[in-house]
């Protein structure tokens, strides 16, 4: 089976919530391929395609969530949580800013873990606490998920405080208000916006100087 077929079959297995079929595809990297390259070749494109299909209305959010969860479980078997082979650069954290809707962050966490990243989960924080933790942990890319407009607007205050504190962090935002107003991320001073959780992998590469 060639790589394109593998990715297509893996995506199909995820969307039909067929864990066993997904597991049978994601067995181990071929000889000479690193585990991260293996994830980049199969898991990342499959999740990105599912994200694209959600954006265009072809699949539902629940399928995106369940796909991410299945991938996270499978990848944890291949690449345990504390494995030194996980990606440690850039230093990542994700957070829900000032609201109480955690699904977006949960999906993002699963997708980034399934893509081989190590990252800190700050759960829910307000602006001042988040500035302090970002500086303390020397975070390089901060991923922020929000559902409510007032929380999205608070990103502006956060970005200003991070800049005043001299943090060199890049801020990526996502969530409903940013999808409904595609200029809002610029208005609040973020470095980038993701329309779907799976766009985060490519966006991190892009704003951190890499290319995918």
């Amino acid at each position, binding site marked *: 089976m060639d790589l394109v077929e593998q990715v297509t079959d893996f995506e199909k297995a995820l969307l039909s919530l067929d864990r066993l079929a997904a597991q049978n595809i994601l067995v181990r990297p071929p000889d000479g391929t690193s585990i991260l390259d293996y994830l980049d070749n199969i898991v990342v494109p499959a999740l990105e395609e599912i994200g694209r299909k959600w954006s265009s209305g072809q699949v539902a959010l*629940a399928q995106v969530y369940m796909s991410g969860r299945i991938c996270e479980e499978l990848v944890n078997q291949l690449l345990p949580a504390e494995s030194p082979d996980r990606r440690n650069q850039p230093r990542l954290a994700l957070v829900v800013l000032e609201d109480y809707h955690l699904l977006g962050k949960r999906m993002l966490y699963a997708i980034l873990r399934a893509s081989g990243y190590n990252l800190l989960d700050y759960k829910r924080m307000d602006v001042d606490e988040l500035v302090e933790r970002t500086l303390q942990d020397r975070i390089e890319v901060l991923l922020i998920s929000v559902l409510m407009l007032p929380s999205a607007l608070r990103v502006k205050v956060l970005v200003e405080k991070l800049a005043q504190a001299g943090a060199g962090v890049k801020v990526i935002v996502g969530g409903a208000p940013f999808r409904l107003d595609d200029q809002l991320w610029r208005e609040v001073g973020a470095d980038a916006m993701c329309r779907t959780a799976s766009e985060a992998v490519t966006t991190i590469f892009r704003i951190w100087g890499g290319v995918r």
Partner: protein
Amino acid sequence: MNKPVMTSMQRVLTTLSHQEPDRVPLFLLPTLHGARELGLSIKDYFASAENVVRGQLLLRKKYQNDCLDAFFYAPIEVEAWGGEVIYREDGPPNSGEPFIRSLDQIKALEPPRPAETPCLRKVLDAIDLMKKAVQDEVPIIAVVISPFSLPVMQLGFDRYLDLLYEQPAIFWNLMQINIEFCVAWANAQVQAGATAICYFDPLSSPTNIPRDLFIKTGFPIARQVFSRTKSPIVMHLASGSTIGILDDIISLGAAVVGVSAAENLTEIKQLCRNKLTILGNMNGITMRHWTLSEAEDIIKNILRQAGSGGGFILSDNHGEIPYQVADEILLNIAALVRKWGIYPLDWTSV
């Protein structure tokens, strides 16, 4: 020739019967703006039925709105079950930590009784006062969260999706409890004077779950609630897409559907014409920075796509105007409906 001026109720009933009233009805739903009108914090505003009634009446006068909105805030329904509500100064209250911490709690859950639950009693009192104030001249729209969507707040969204996919027996147990609550809550509001119930069911949108899952879950749940609710029902998917399930919504017997700003309104109108009234679909998030000329272009475009033949009410796409939308913008919208929404909409064919 223009038609004689109608009351808001006549205007809305005419459009619901897929006829053209004197003008396009406007349902501006600035739930939170009443607090600003009264100079109160959002928390203080929602502390009493009288505040909300005064706020709604002032807003109606200001914007010549065609309904009164009896909706307080979504987490009032988890507050009724003992859950936490967290207020903020610049937006709607949020639900706090989900109150169902373990699935074992579900079988022992007792649905709250609306008339005996202080936060719900407050809403019933507000509806009663609204009804006394407007009689049958203005429709009063009340809201219930669907039994199918309520667990997003009861359990948290991720845990709820896990339950939905992996533990059907417990899911249906929770649904039976929620259905009983939802029907009682809807009918209590109807009895208090609500004209219609807005059934707020974002989870059923194809944006959130695939249609085949909806047909097995959200659809039969809605059918149970709709068949037992003693008023017309507005099916609102809270800015989720509707197109993939519009025929299902029609078959449920809904009178109105709230549609998303991201959807093709022309296509929706074709699917709904003479069957289902469309409510929508101004984007409340971008509305914050609409200039008069942008607002005019947007409203004309919406009316051009969906206004003809009645069966249409202009509103936002989420069911609540963000607090950040300035009064001036809402006044512009109200004025533009009176300028461009007079039937017949002859200008749309020019």
